[in-house]
């Protein structure tokens, strides 16, 4: 029973991290419908740049975080304006191939420049782990969960409560109509892509302070993020959180009670079943097919 509680706590924390790392993809894949295989590399770059800023340049965590996220926003903007823009409307293949090329490039350039060793970002919070009855949790994990909640709320508010958010929703519903009513859709696309990149990078830097950043982690992160986005429903933030938690919990319990080797299979089987039986995702309210 105690073990079950610990699995529950671990699953919730891992799930929050899954949700956090999938947020950027919720925007880019869920809303923009760009099948972005470079998502994991954006996440990885967030962690590696965070390591450069804190461990190499000696900045404090908060300053480094702001700088890294801003730099990644610029990168995302440039990638969209100079690459994705050129293949928009040419079907999935071109974007998939383009983002696969980008991910191969980013992963290997990072590997070449920074080496294969894990890079640990100094954690902003240290101290003894908390004991809640039989359950053990560390403070930095709880802090990361709290930051994820803030980021999710922030992104949600931007999309649902601001002018640019309304322009985004209009553009992804019908780009032509949005253009006709005076929205500069190419800017909206670039802004959304940049926002998604920034979310991915902030997740990468936060998690690099708990685990560590590694040049080769991108592929796995992309796959998990796709699973979370599809579980939760395309483009839905509450869905992404629920999807992340479901994935984290089912992996924790599967790993605890069935077998640890096959943990990764859980998410993929769920994706296959979801797409077959409930293609709108578990929590999608609007009529968008997921």
């Amino acid at each position, binding site marked *: 029973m105690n073990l079950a509680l610990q699995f529950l706590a671990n699953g919730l924390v891992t799930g929050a991290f899954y949700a956090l790392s999938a947020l950027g993809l919720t925007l880019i894949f869920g809303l923009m419908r760009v099948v972005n295989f470079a998502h994991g590399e954006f996440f990885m770059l967030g962690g590696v740049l965070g390591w450069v800023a804190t461990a190499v340049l000696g900045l404090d965590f908060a300053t480094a975080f702001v700088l890294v996220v801003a730099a990644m926003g610029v990168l995302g903007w440039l990638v969209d304006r100079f690459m994705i823009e050129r293949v928009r409307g040419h079907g999935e293949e071109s974007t998939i191939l383009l983002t696969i090329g980008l991910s191969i490039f980013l992963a290997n350039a990072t590997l070449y420049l920074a080496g294969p060793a894990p890079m640990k970002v100094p954690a902003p919070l240290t101290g003894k782990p908390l004991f809640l009855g039989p359950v053990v949790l560390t403070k930095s994990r709880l802090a990361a969960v709290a930051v994820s909640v803030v980021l999710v709320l922030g992104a949600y508010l931007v999309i649902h409560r601001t002018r640019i958010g309304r322009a985004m929703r209009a553009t992804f519903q019908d780009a032509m109509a949005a253009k006709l009513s005076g929205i500069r859709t190419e800017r909206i696309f670039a802004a959304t892509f940049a926002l998604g990149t920034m979310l991915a990078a902030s997740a990468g830097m936060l998690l690099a302070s708990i685990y560590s950043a590694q040049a080769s982690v991108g592929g796995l992160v992309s796959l998990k993020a*796709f699973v979370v986005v599809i579980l939760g429903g395309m483009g839905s933030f509450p869905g992404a959180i629920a999807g992340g938690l479901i994935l984290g919990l089912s992996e924790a319990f599967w790993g605890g009670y069935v077998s640890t080797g096959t943990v990764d299979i859980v998410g993929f089987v769920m994706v296959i079943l979801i797409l077959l039986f409930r293609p709108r995702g578990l929590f999608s309210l609007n009529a968008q097919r*997921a």
Partner: protein
Amino acid sequence: MTGERSSLLFVLVLAAVFPFAVQNPYILHLAVIAGIYVVLATSLNLIVGYVGEFSLGHTAFFGIGAYAAALLSTAAGLPIWLTVPLAGLLAGLFGIVIGAITLRLQGPYFVIVTLAFAEVLRIVATNWIGLTNGPMGIAGVPQPASVAAAGIVGGKQIYYFMAAGMVAVSLYLAWRLVRSNSGRAAVAVRENRFVAQSIGVDPFLTAMHVFTLSAVLAGFAGGFYAHYVSFVGPEVFRFSFMASMIIMVLMGGKGTLLGPVLGAVIVVGLEEYLRQAQELRLTLFGLIVMAVVLFAPNGLMGLLARRPAWLARRAAPALVSNQGEPA
């Protein structure tokens, strides 16, 4: 596309005389690898270019073929001329099952669900130690006796001719499929699903035909790969094989039979050539892939096809003036 059949025949003739001109075992090895990739790229191209859906799970069929051939030859002792066709058939059966599930979806969902299937198979292959020997893989897949007897260059030549034979059979099957009712129906669905349905084409059924043949071809390639490399591990399901296949198909030009053949040969050559750049190899490779998408979106065949389009533009005004005259 009238030149396509003669171009393909030309490629095959070139392939047939190739080993007599080149005796270098390293070059022959590259040619065999290129042959395997030609079959894989042709098979993926059937889905990407003719069904018009983008599969990221094609390694599923390659891996099933490889494991099938490895198990059939090590455990059951069957010879290579039986294991490779059986590998293709088994992959085809899996193709029917996976296709029946995945082809109900389109667009990004098809992409992700096929990827999920390949990943599930990879994890099963890693963990089902009783059947696949897990991460250790199956070593010592037997070589044909004739290869062992023929020495280094002779052995490579025998493998080369087997690969060339497999390429010829695969291209013939793909050619027949593309020219069949199913192939033409698939193109109609790709171009406009609703118009195709309105003239009585069942999109799901035609896609199933093409998907199944595509799985069979990938299974052939996997079976042959198992014998050639003589080792099969869970990495046959890895995404890097998939990335190579996609790059070959799109670099060569999807929806043409010749394009993936050229793409496979060029990419295998390019990957080898970039070995000079050592650690920067994959970084450069990523850049080249991006450049191809941005500057030659229809691949090499698209570049080649540009000239006829330019010629056609010169002829176009005559056509317009003909139509303009009162009947």
